[in-house]
């Protein structure tokens, strides 16, 4: 029996077997002919594998092991290639989450409402400044009363739930998240955060991320948009 190729082994294990005569190879492009595994050939491969497992095939058994080893090497090489990016992305996300801890949950959730809100029209152009610092806006200052009110509302709702359910309520469950109450408050003004909006971007084959970097609340900064693209080290 002819030693099966790696492609044939893959087709065999994937069950991609075609009944004899079901496909006319002459009608297929040359590169597609190799990807057709007929039933008769599959039976030969099954026989070959049985012999290999018994050790009766000698060298072919080593061929299977080699195929698996090559596959393992490829997987490990790919994982190693991606490892630096994973660590950088993890560091970035970790830093974002650490920053979140210091912010009010209500404020963070209001910021997160920005994405689905479509711009209605444009704000007037602000005075031009030579500074590279982000343009100050009164967004957070104007939202602060609403946020405070929503926080109090959330606290009141949590107290009411505790009173209604009493000590039978599961201790481990978190009280209603203020963010949801903020989101459903009908009188909350629309988020009017400023900053650059990305209308479209084509990352091609690269991985890309769009960060919306919040401004300093104390400085009443606007959001800064960052388009971050994963680049490959140039090959020597």
């Amino acid at each position, binding site marked *: 029996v002819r030693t099966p190729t790696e492609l044939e082994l893959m087709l065999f294990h994937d069950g991609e077997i075609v009944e004899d005569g079901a496909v006319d190879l002459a009608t297929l492009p040359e590169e597609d002919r190799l990807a057709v595994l007929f039933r008769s050939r599959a039976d030969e491969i099954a026989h070959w594998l049985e012999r290999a497992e018994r050790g009766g095939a000698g060298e072919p058994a080593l061929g299977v092991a080699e195929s698996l080893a090559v596959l393992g090497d490829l997987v490990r090489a790919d994982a190693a290639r991606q490892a630096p990016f994973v660590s950088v992305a993890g560091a*970035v*996300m970790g*830093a*974002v*989450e650490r*920053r*979140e801890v210091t912010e009010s949950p209500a404020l*963070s*959730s209001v910021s*997160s409402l*920005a*994405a*689905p*809100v*479509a*711009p*209605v029209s*444009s*704000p*007037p*152009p*602000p005075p031009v400044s030579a500074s*590279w*610092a*982000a*343009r100050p806006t009164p967004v957070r200052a104007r939202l602060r009363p609403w946020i405070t009110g929503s926080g109090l509302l959330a606290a009141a709702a949590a107290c009411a739930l505790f009173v209604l359910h009493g000590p039978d309520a599961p201790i481990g469950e978190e009280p209603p*998240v203020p*963010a949801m109450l903020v989101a459903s408050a009908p009188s909350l003004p*629309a*988020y009017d955060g*400023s*900053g*650059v*909006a*990305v*209308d*479209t*971007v*084509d*990352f091609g084959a*690269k*991985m*890309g*991320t*769009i*960060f*919306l*970097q919040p401004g300093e609340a104390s*400085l009443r900064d606007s*959001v*800064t*948009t*960052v*388009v*971050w*693209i*994963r*680049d*490959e080290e*140039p090959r020597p």
Partner: protein
Amino acid sequence: MISRRRMLTLSSLAVPTVLLGASQAFAQGKPPAVLPQLATDVLVLHATNRGGGIDPSLAQLRQLKDPPFSSYDTYKQLSRTKVLVSKDRATNVGLPDQGKLSLKRLDVPTRYKLGANIVKGSGEPFLANLEVTGDLNDIFFVAGQVYDGGILVIGIRLVAPS
């Protein structure tokens, strides 16, 4: 609760559209005046982890101290260029790797819309068809291109031509 990480991270598999700018002017009822000419201030930085800190000339860029920029500890200014952008043709800005950043003003009646492309010095496209909408003095960054042991960080600010 909506995961902020999920909110902030958009995969390249689905072309992302981020609508950020719910308008301040929705209550004002009239579109703002748009300058007939627009310029951009293009700041090219080199980010590395060589322990050198942030260039004092960049002290006003408080964004560099926060994520995602804080994953690098050293920022140096490589160039700063102010260029006019027009609707008729793309304006090119040279990059340190001999690549180029192309900017073009897009035709939007009431807002400032900018198109940007980056081609590496090797000729390989790095950023294709980025379109952003913003207002005067707004700044955005494009980062990640590998360069000299670090990455390039390009800040682009919409400004009035002087």
